[in-house]
């Protein structure tokens, strides 16, 4: 579900439908409420062979958002430690296959490759950006954490994060829009 708040920021709740994805444009600021599944390099490395062999994944990716992050350990009494995004392009190799299974969003930082951008259009999905390096601030939006798979991977385990109003921005939409390209074009000065 996507609703535009009074402040112009779009409130997203998971799971996401095709229509939800279609209402998001590159550059839109969003707040996510619901579930984010964390997965980064090592977890993707384990999910990928399962997909190739047609086996069941430890998480249901349909309509879901995967957050590329490896949180720092929680202090006693805290829900989670710092939890900012890692670079999305390292997961490019795995992303189109997950989108094909119905994953609707990925959340990270940095450019994605053309194959991922094409897959976002083909399967109606979005790539969202969280502020890299703002891990302490972002931890405040995480209300509950549960490890759902690959606990042996430590910070790289798959975790289910229950989030409320988690702030992000649409980097790549399902129409080929790209915030990085638009942003840089708008502010680049001549003579560079």
């Amino acid at each position, binding site marked *: 579900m996507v609703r535009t708040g009074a402040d112009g920021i779009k409130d997203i709740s998971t799971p996401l439908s095709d229509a939800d994805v279609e209402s998001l444009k590159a*550059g839109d600021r969003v707040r996510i409420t619901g579930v984010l599944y964390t997965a980064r390099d*090592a977890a993707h490395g384990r999910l990928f062979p399962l997909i190739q062999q047609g086996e069941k994944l430890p998480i249901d990716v349909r309509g879901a958002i995967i957050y590329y*992050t*490896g*949180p*720092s*350990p*929680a*202090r006693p009494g*805290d829900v989670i*430690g*710092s*939890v*900012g995004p*890692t*670079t999305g*392009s390292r997961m490019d190799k795995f992303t189109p296959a997950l989108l094909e299974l119905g994953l609707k969003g990925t959340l990270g*930082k*940095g*450019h994605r490759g053309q194959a991922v951008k094409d897959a976002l259009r083909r399967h109606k999905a979005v790539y969202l*950006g969280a*502020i*890299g*390096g*703002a*891990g*302490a*601030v972002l*931890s*405040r939006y995480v209300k509950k954490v549960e490890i759902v798979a690959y606990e042996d*991977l*430590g*910070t*790289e385990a798959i975790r289910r994060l229950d989030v409320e109003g988690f702030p992000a*921005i649409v980097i790549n939409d399902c129409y080929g829009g790209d*915030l*990085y390209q*638009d*942003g*840089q*074009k*708008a*502010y*680049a*000065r001549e*003579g*560079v």
Partner: protein
Amino acid sequence: MRDIHVSAISDAVKKLCMEANWELEADMLRAFDRALTTERSTAGKHVLQILKENAQLAKTKRIPYCQDTGFVVCFVELGQDVHVTGGALDDAINHGVSQGYQEGYLRASIVRSPFDRVNTGDNTPAVIHLDVVPGAAMKIMVMAKGGGCENRSKYKMLTPADGAQGVKDWVLECVRTAGPDACPPLILGVGVGGTFEKSAILSKKALFRELGSPNPDPTLEALEQELLVSANRLGIGPQGYGGDTTAFGIHILTYPCHITSLPVAVTIECHAHRHKEVTL
């Protein structure tokens, strides 16, 4: 000879690791404030404000500014009149890293082998660069180096004919290719001269200079300022959302080089520029 026991070294490293991750240095906080006065982009300003807030929250709660609490890169300037007692210097540093990361609730991000990729669990070992210098003091400089920006660091062997223009073009190319991936606003450490490995080490060491302080060499200072202006005209901006603040600083260190060579190494550092130092 002056004796320094390994326990003093471990204790110092432990404290540096924790504090570096919890508290950004004052030079970084000043850089955020400066950028907020010049940044034209609304999205860019918003990012800078959140990052300031992030620094404050991390310090207050003693949680890491960024969840990637980095690879510990440790430069040691060891006075030649110092005698390290009670064990090996490297072990003492790594013991400090292990304690700091475990007791400080910092993330373990190091794998024991680039091939089997099993996490060591305590963020050891550190990368240690040792210089022996005159005197009876020991200076320990610690950086918690993030992986995302490190992945965009680059090296190029230019020719003497490429000259200063070649260096400028290469540094700007490194800013362009780092782009949004490396978490701008960036700080660039540039090592020019020496050999292949010397330039890379210089590029790391250059990052320890206080941000906003002038390069002691006026020619290099002028080059740094010129590069910084050019980098900030690229339009990449905070987080790559578009804007005027792509880099906070560009720091250059040089070394003599061979008549055939012009090596240039560029370490890309993100705004989570976490470094602390102490002299024992």
